[in-house]
């Protein structure tokens, strides 16, 4: 296990060679905004919020998906990055329908919190205002596509932690949707074990517990974290 030395925002940082820039930054107490990343799941660089600048490269790199290297010089909060991050957020808000005032996740939403953190006081792109379906066929949970940002946390947690692979993504671009089984209503998806891990993992109000009302739903991820720690560190801490 070789160690690498790099600088992040001018600070010297040591990291394992198999760590990502995001992990190295986190260990050094530097916070990089993320949306699709969730501890314990594989990373795929879907949301691009964690983009950083690496000296010597013109392209911005997703910190969650790039491994550290010796002598790397990383910037995580340059003006250019702030500009792009805010733009990405605005596009997410313009694409579907985030009506925070009537959302189950109002006040406990990772997307909403990022908007606050990145200073997004309005969206400069024209809203698409196209209506999406809501699937409430499952007897315990619901899915509101209007709030989905296609981060695929649900897909990965279901596949990698629960091992059911009920979720997937169908369609392309603006038509992309998360689906259950072969695009059946969730309530008819036989592979679903009703474990609720997807609901715990979702960053927005897209997946919800039935019966939750506006601003009422808080996600408890402790059960998820317990499984991930047990797996990765072989520690069974309740």
């Amino acid at each position, binding site marked *: 296990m070789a160690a690498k030395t790099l600088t992040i925002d001018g600070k010297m940082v040591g990291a394992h060679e198999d760590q990502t820039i995001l992990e190295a930054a986190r260990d050094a107490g530097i916070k990089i905004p993320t949306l699709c990343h969730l501890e314990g799941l594989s990373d795929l660089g879907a949301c691009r919020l964690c983009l950083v600048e690496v000296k010597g490269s013109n392209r911005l790199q997703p910190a969650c998906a790039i491994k550290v290297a010796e002598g790397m010089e990383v910037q995580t909060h340059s003006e250019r990055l702030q500009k792009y991050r805010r733009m990405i957020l605005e596009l997410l808000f313009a694409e579907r329908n985030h009506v925070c005032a009537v959302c189950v996740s109002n006040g406990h939403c990772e997307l909403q919190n990022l908007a606050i953190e990145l200073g997004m006081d309005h969206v400069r792109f*024209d*809203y698409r205002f196209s209506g999406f379906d809501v699937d409430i066929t499952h007897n315990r949970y619901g899915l509101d596509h209007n709030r989905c940002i296609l981060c695929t946390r649900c897909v990965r947690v279901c596949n990698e932690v629960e091992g059911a692979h009920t979720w997937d993504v169908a369609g392309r671009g603006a038509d992309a949707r998360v689906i259950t089984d072969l695009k059946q209503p969730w309530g008819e998806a036989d592979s679903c074990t009703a474990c609720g891990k997807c609901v715990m993992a979702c960053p927005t109000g897209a997946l919800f517990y039935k019966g939750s009302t506006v601003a009422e739903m808080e996600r408890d991820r402790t059960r998820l974290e317990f499984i991930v720690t047990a797996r990765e560190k072989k520690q069974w801490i309740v």
Partner: protein
Amino acid sequence: MSFLDLDEWLFDLAAKIELVYSPIMDIKVYPENVDVVLIEGAVANEDHLQLIHLIRKKTKVLVSFGDCAVTGNVTALRNFLGPAEHVLRRAYLEGADIQAQIPSMPGVVPALLDTVRPVHEIVPVEVFLPGCPPPADRIRALLEQVLAGEAPHLMGSQIKFG
């Protein structure tokens, strides 16, 4: 209503400003040379559209006040139903129990626009104050900056939607 939550600070405010136009004032015409205007609500009908262009022409600083003005919010949910005639049909014909008919009073009831839009999609806006409704402390923070002659700048939890 949230504005009224400013309580006694409203007296301080009244001493410093001259209120020249408001829905609760008996004035029909938007005046000239207005310094600051707080705009509530999205642009949803022909009257709103005319007024917002007029306001833009006669005002220095436009403030989009609250989520409906900034995003369209709940009032824009009707956009999914399609153009205005579909919305009216849904509300007054399909949704009616008795005497289904679409109200029409040309010149009195303004025609709906096909889509509800946030204010800044129609005219340039200088300041955004999200919130549903924006709480009184947020309104006060903004107005204090405006009164001090600064370009208002709200950060952190002061710009929370919802």
